[in-house]
């Protein structure tokens, strides 16, 4: 769970009285016996035990708690590794130091592992902002100096695609219950040319958040239900112009598009709109042609998505003032949570902030769902529109994973040690704890959606079902739009943001011209990185 979510949840939910009440009811449950919730997997008692460390509302866990959780979850390691087996092995682990979590958390988890196996781990801690340049420079200058790396799936093209990773042994798959993943994280994610490389430790997706008080009988939209398509979203955005927001009494607004770039991450929000137009269920590709890497970003589907945004820009009052300068941080936290606007797409955590953040005013009127679909979809292969309803939630960014590099090749002991360490922090039980407590990671296994386990830990069931349920549908959607894991994917996003900004500011004549400019810039990047290798890697990333 993200730290801020946890803190806000605890602040708003857990008064001293409610903690005591919860403790009393837990005590009563224990005294009655037989009322314990069912825990997923075969380590029920461990799962129940770690979920009590330190207990929801009992303060933020730190190194002693991390070590304790790490110690309790050592069982699978002990089944496969003898005590002291890795004595003399030194491993280097490169990861993040965001919010004093990530690597710091791993240190705590791995301390008991080091004590048991005899291995020693050296750490390379990086700030988020330094991560990409450090990784890219290591790859480009052939100075990979780490054995284990915490890495996002979008970088798999840069690493696995260049043969820098070590293939996951089968025993690791058994240890971590490799199959226990939500749909979109299943292979080909984490694999390259059919070989598995990734131990998942995180998940990410965009979901649709809307204001319930804008819909229903007597509402300002006059609609019974929230929109199911982007066409409806745009219509609602136009319909509410001139009306008053039922909650704040300020001017009402519809959908909040971020029109300013966000270091490449802003492009995901245009993808939210475009995916139902362009991600055809019969075609795994939606950003590039698989055989030529010719960008599809200027096909009629993408152009329609850009046009939809431009239509709202051209409609006075559709967006709040100064929307051209709003990035996703603004739309999510300064606008939607503060009661401006009625619809938004964002990562899963914005929804739970709506209920728990001190600055949120929409906690009681917020609803969630998967991203809107479209009443028509563009079939790129046939070159024509099809008038059928299409849904394609955007599983934007693929969360963090742990990988082992090829530095362990040829040294069986070191390889086993590296994979054992990675498997320990990506274990099934430990991941339940990282989902439930401040860790920087989101739920990503099917077993994380067993709401009884959360309730037993002290969470409010309604909160948990809202928080988790909005993600689950997107994760497991059969036509989800997933990240193409090719080298330099954020370069494509970054340059697209620049061109979109020009288009949105009216510097291009039309949506088509804007899309053509993006396509031209993408072609340049593809040529620079190497078209043939990109084609090969794109196909591999799609599992073709």
């Amino acid at each position, binding site marked *: 769970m993200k730290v801020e979510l946890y803190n806000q949840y605890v602040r708003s939910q857990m008064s001293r009285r409610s903690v005591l009440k919860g403790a009393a009811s837990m005590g009563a449950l224990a005294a009655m016996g037989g009322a314990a919730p069912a825990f997923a997997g075969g380590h029920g008692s461990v799962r129940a035990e770690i979920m009590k460390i330190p207990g929801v509302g009992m303060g933020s866990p730190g190194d002693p708690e991390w070590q304790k959780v790490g110690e309790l979850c050592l069982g699978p390691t002990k089944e496969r590794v003898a005590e002291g087996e890795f004595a003399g092995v030194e491993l280097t682990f490169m990861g993040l130091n965001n919010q004093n979590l990530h690597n710091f958390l791993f240190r705590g988890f791995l301390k008991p592992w080091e004590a048991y196996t005899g291995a020693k781990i050296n750490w390379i801690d990086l700030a988020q902002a330094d991560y990409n340049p450090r990784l890219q420079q290591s790859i*480009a200058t052939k100075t990979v100096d780490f054995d284990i790396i915490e890495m996002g799936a979008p970088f798999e093209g840069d690493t696995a695609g260049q043969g820098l990773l070590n293939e996951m042994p089968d025993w690791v798959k058994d240890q971590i219950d490799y199959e226990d993943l939500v749909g979109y994280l299943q292979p080909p994610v984490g694999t390259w040319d059919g070989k598995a490389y990734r131990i998942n430790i995180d998940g990410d997706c965009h979901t649709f958040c809307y204001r319930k008080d804008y819909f229903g009988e007597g509402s300002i939209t006059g609609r019974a239900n929230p929109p199911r398509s982007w066409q409806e979203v745009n219509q609602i955005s136009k319909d509410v112009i001139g009306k008053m927001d039922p909650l704040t009494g300020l001017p009402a607004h519809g959908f909040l598009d971020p029109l*300013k770039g966000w270091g*490449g991450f802003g492009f995901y929000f245009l993808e939210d709109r475009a995916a139902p137009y362009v991600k055809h269920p019969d075609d795994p590709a939606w950003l590039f042609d698989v055989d030529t890497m010719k960008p599809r970003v200027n096909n009629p589907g993408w152009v329609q998505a850009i046009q939809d945004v431009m239509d709202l820009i051209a409609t006075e009052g559709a967006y*709040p003032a100064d929307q*051209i*300068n709003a990035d996703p941080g603004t739309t999510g936290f300064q606008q939607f949570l503060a009661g401006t606007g009625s619809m938004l797409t964002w990562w899963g955590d914005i929804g739970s902030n709506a209920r728990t953040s001190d600055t949120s005013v929409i906690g009681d009127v917020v609803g969630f769902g998967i991203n809107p679909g479209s009443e028509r979809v563009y079939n790129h292969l046939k070159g024509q529109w099809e008038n059928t309803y299409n849904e394609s939630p955007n599983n934007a960014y693929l969360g963090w994973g742990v990988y082992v590099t090829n530095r362990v090749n040829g040294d069986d002991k070191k390889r086993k040690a590296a994979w054992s360490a990675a498997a320990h922090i990506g274990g099934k039980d430990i991941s339940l704890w990282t989902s439930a407590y401040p860790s920087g990671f989101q739920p990503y296994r099917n077993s994380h959606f067993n709401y009884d386990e959360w309730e037993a830990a002290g969470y409010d069931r309604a909160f948990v079902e809202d928080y988790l349920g909005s993600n689950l549908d997107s994760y497991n959607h059969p036509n989800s739009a997933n990240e193409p894991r090719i080298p330099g994917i954020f*370069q494509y996003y970054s340059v697209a943001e620049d061109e979109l*900004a020009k288009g*949105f500011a009216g510097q291009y004549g039309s949506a088509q011209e804007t899309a053509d400019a993006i396509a031209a810039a993408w072609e340049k990047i593809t040529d620079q990185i190497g078209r043939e290798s990109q084609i090969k890697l794109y196909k591999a990333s799609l599992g073709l």
Partner: protein
Amino acid sequence: MSSKEYLHIVTQDHIPVQKMRFGRVLIWGSAGIFFCLVFLQLLQQNGVADFKFSNWRPTLYAYGFWAICLCAAQVLMYGERGKRTLFVLPAVLFVISMVVFPLIFALGIAFSSWNLSSPDGRQFNGLDNVWEMWADPFYWNALKNMVWYILAIIPEYAIAFGLAILLNAQIRARKFFRVAFLMPLMLSPVAVSWMIGKSMLEIRFGPISRLARTLGWDNPSFFGSGEIARGMIMMMDAWTFIPFMMIMILAGLQAIPKELHEAAEVDGAPPWKRFWEITFPLMLPVSITAILIRIIFKLKLADIIINVTSGGPGGATDSVTSFIYREYRDRSNVGYGTFLAIVYLVIIVIFMTVLMKLADRWMKPRY
């Protein structure tokens, strides 16, 4: 050696031939080791032989050793004169290592296609980056914006001069105002961009937006149109750096002898005449220096832009540095990014040289 050169030498050195020879051996011996190591490492890098070097540190250490030997040899070979050389030589070696060499490497990179995501690594691409820059509307747009940003220094200077005159006058709480006016300079531009750009100018809740609404501007938008956004960036940057110019001018004002003003006053010169004929000309050298330094600061403007507008809307606030930042960092386009930076450096050097020549001419006293 002329007698003039002995002026500052305390003792006359008589360097023995052996000592001279030993000095030469030190220099050439250490240089030989350095070049040998470079050669061996190059052989290994090109796969000709494997000497088990895991990195280039041996070459670095050899360079350090050669630098020490070179310094020591100066004393051995030239005695007192060598000691004088030692005052400068380490600094020269440091500059060569940290500025000249990297610049030479940067030139190599600038004429390459090097995308960090490319499996092919760095490829020499001749003048391709030149043509790409020539046809890159984002770069020219950023350069055009820089002209506007530089021009904004003129009103900044006028304000700074006015404030300096005020603070130089006998006003109440002068010390307090001097410190208060300096405060913005103590703030990091990143903090300024968050405190002002992201908080005070926030459209809905920001106090300045509220004030604007109270004054009748229904939907205040500070970064919505290109011109206003550029103006706001200029203002935030000016707010941070006007105190810098102000303090330089204030120091200059305090150095002007009071007698000059008193004499002019006795002669019946009105205040404006006194300013224009005495204060302004005497302040010209300080003013030019303050403006030149301010231009150098301005040419590096990036942090406020990156934080507040990311160069938008539609590139209206982009500076060359913020554009290069995106090209290099977000797109890992090292070759092209480096080329743009080198071109910018050349432009700055030429611009500043011309400006300093002109300033030199202007600074010739008119009185």
